[in-house]
């Protein structure tokens, strides 16, 4: 490697060389274009200014906050506030209108359903499933069988105060543990199970004592479930004569319920959700398909 102070021009490219030469290969003097170089300097200046203006460097227990005092969390809060303000027209309407009024206003109803869907995903889907299809012990909200009633007012009541959530408010009523507490013998439970299955036309074991089961049912169950097993929404006693079974229709499942009792709990949302959200949830759940005929 050598230096040559004389400027030399490369013949092929017409560009001056730096005078550096390695194994006959000469280094051409192609300096960075000025515009590129100045852009590069400008980015450095920009980066320094940015570090001063905005939060940039981590410190031991904190970070440099920047002279503008910009804060990402505050920026999000501002964005959310702006979003709330943008929606406030519809939200105010939703807060002021009654459930039935909203049901009659297609635009407001669509808005409520959208909000209700979001709230359902956040709060209800954990038990009832994303589409409200429910699970064993958790009612399907799409069907027309309602433990506590499917009108707007009844659904709102259930959401607000839950089911068996507290002793003073909301829905009460549990299925006693007939077997475990010694009220009925195993033989009697078997008979009444067969009778209950027969109520909705399900096949029963050969030689089942349906008449005996009916007698036991009338004495022990009809008070809550009704004389024909049609259920009672005041007490959350399921309709036993329809095709929908909260826990299942197998005899062993029914026997289990009779032996141990039933009393699944839905929490009360009155203190956790605001009125508008509860309203939206009510309309959404009602619109899933189980809405009682008007």
């Amino acid at each position, binding site marked *: 490697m*050598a230096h040559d102070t004389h400027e030399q021009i490369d013949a092929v*490219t017409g560009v001056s060389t730096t005078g550096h030469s390695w194994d*006959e290969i000469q280094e051409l003097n192609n300096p960075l274009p000025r515009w590129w170089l100045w852009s590069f300097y400008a980015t450095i200046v920009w980066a320094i200014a940015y570090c001063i203006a905005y939060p940039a460097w981590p410190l031991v227990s904190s970070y440099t906050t920047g002279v503008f005092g910009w804060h990402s969390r505050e920026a999000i809060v501002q964005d959310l506030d702006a979003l709330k303000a943008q929606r406030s027209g519809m939200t105010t309407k939703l807060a002021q209108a009654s459930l039935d009024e909203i049901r009659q206003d297609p635009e407001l109803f*669509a808005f409520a359903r959208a909000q209700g869907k979001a709230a359902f995903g956040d709060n209800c889907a954990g038990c009832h499933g994303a*589409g409200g299809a429910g699970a064993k012990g958790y009612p399907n909200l*799409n*069907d027309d069988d309602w433990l506590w009633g499917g009108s707007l007012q009844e659904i709102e009541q259930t959401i607000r105060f839950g089911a068996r959530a507290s002793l003073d408010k909301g829905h009460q009523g549990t299925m006693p543990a007939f077997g475990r507490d010694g009220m009925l013998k195993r033989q009697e439970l078997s008979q009444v199970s067969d009778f209950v299955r027969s109520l909705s036309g399900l096949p029963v074991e050969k030689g089942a004592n349906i008449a005996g089961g009916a007698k036991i049912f009338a004495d022990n169950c009809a008070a809550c479930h009704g004389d024909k097993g049609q259920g009672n929404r005041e007490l959350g006693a399921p309709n036993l004569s329809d095709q*929908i079974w909260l826990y299942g229709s197998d005899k062993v499942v029914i026997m289990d319920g009779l032996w141990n009792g039933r009393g699944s709990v839905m929490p009360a949302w009155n203190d956790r959700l605001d009125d508008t959200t509860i309203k939206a949830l009510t309309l959404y759940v009602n619109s899933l*398909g189980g809405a009682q005929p008007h």
Partner: protein
Amino acid sequence: MADAPLAKSLAAPAPASAEEAPLYVPRKQIYPQAVKGRFRTIKWVVLAIALGIYYFLPFIRWDRGPNAPDQAILVDLANGRFYFFFIEIWPQEVYYLTGLLVLASLVLFLMNAVAGRVWCGYLCPQTVWTDLFYAVERLIEGDRRERMKKAKEKWTLEILAQKVLKHSIWILIAWWTGGAWVLYFADAPTLVKELATFQAPAMAYIWIGILTFTTYTLAGFMREQVCTYMCPWPRIQAALTDEYALNVTYRYDRGEPRGSVKKAEVLRKQGLPAGDCVDCVQCVAVCPTGVDIRKGLQLDCIQCGLCIDACDSVMTKIGRPTGLIAYDTDMNVQARIEGKPEVRRIVRPRTILYAGLIALVGIVMIAALAMRQNIDLNVMHDRNPIFVRLSDGSIRNAYTIRMANKHLEERRYTLNVEGLDGARLDIVGGRIDQDGQPILSVGPDQTLEMRVLVTAAGDAPASSTDLRFILTDLASGETARARDHFKAP
């Protein structure tokens, strides 16, 4: 250093031979000379029409009633609508735009098959705006010779004043160009008012700024380099063209051998061959890309025809027939030299094919537009749960339907379902009219989403049944259909 002598001996300059000439040619500044003639006039007319359309089209009004904007051409990005006179296009109908682009490229191919780079020479925005900028330059700084002289001189106050004036007018034109662009995206008169009072959205100013910058640099500085180096069309064009396509051609059968007027007269008197080209280089002087057309077809030539005008005026002056440079083909030049007849075939398989394709695409687009549905129906089955068993044991499926009403007034529809005998249809939140038929009313130019429940009557149907949803416009009877399935256990 030990190796210094060796390096020195190697660093001796190599002899510059023709093979080892520099690989890069620096740009030569071009000073096109003013010219008058047929093609210059055509270019001025095209320029006036093209710029007139571009600058004033957004101000044309088109009454669409109270529920739509009254601007003839409007790209309404905020609401997802494109208005073109009597046509209104929704985002999902972007294929109309695709069809328009297909049509545009086919027209470009046809133009190319007939007369080469007509687009480049007359219609391309780069050509039109560069032409306009050259006109401004000529008006202020003078014609070719004056401009070349001024470029070499030291700056005087006069030259400086002219430069300031020229660039100011350029920037004004560029700014108006950007300004016209944004008017296609909002109500033009309103936006003009907002721009004037500095109340327009920031995006409008940003776009005006971008387009002012690009127009100013592309038409003021980069000019023919855009055509020579940046644009892909010359390359594609060269691959698409054939020997029948008319091109701006120097008829060397007539022009060669070149010489002065006097020398040519002497030669002609002696009965010796003498060309009409007097080597006045006027064709080069007027060329906006600085090429010499006498070297034949070349990539840099945008075929604007200005050299034809220049040559014709010279030929007229020296009393020789015009058309030494003309729209012709190399094939014909060769044919004349060989004494064969000329061939001019505008109608040939290539042009017939392009014209046929244009007609086909045009017919398809017009048919699609004429048969365009003004209502749309989309159905989406609930994913969870797939079906629901009701208390009486019957099976129900739930769907979300989305209706689009492209009419500019509110319309009322009924929804029916086919494919499942005796199935009941319920619309959540739907209004029921006297006949028990649910009525769906969709606002003008809007969509509406609804939840729909279909319940199978009696026994459970097969695990999957095809369903058809039919939406009927109560006013016009127009229908839209959508398919889906009914699922059961």
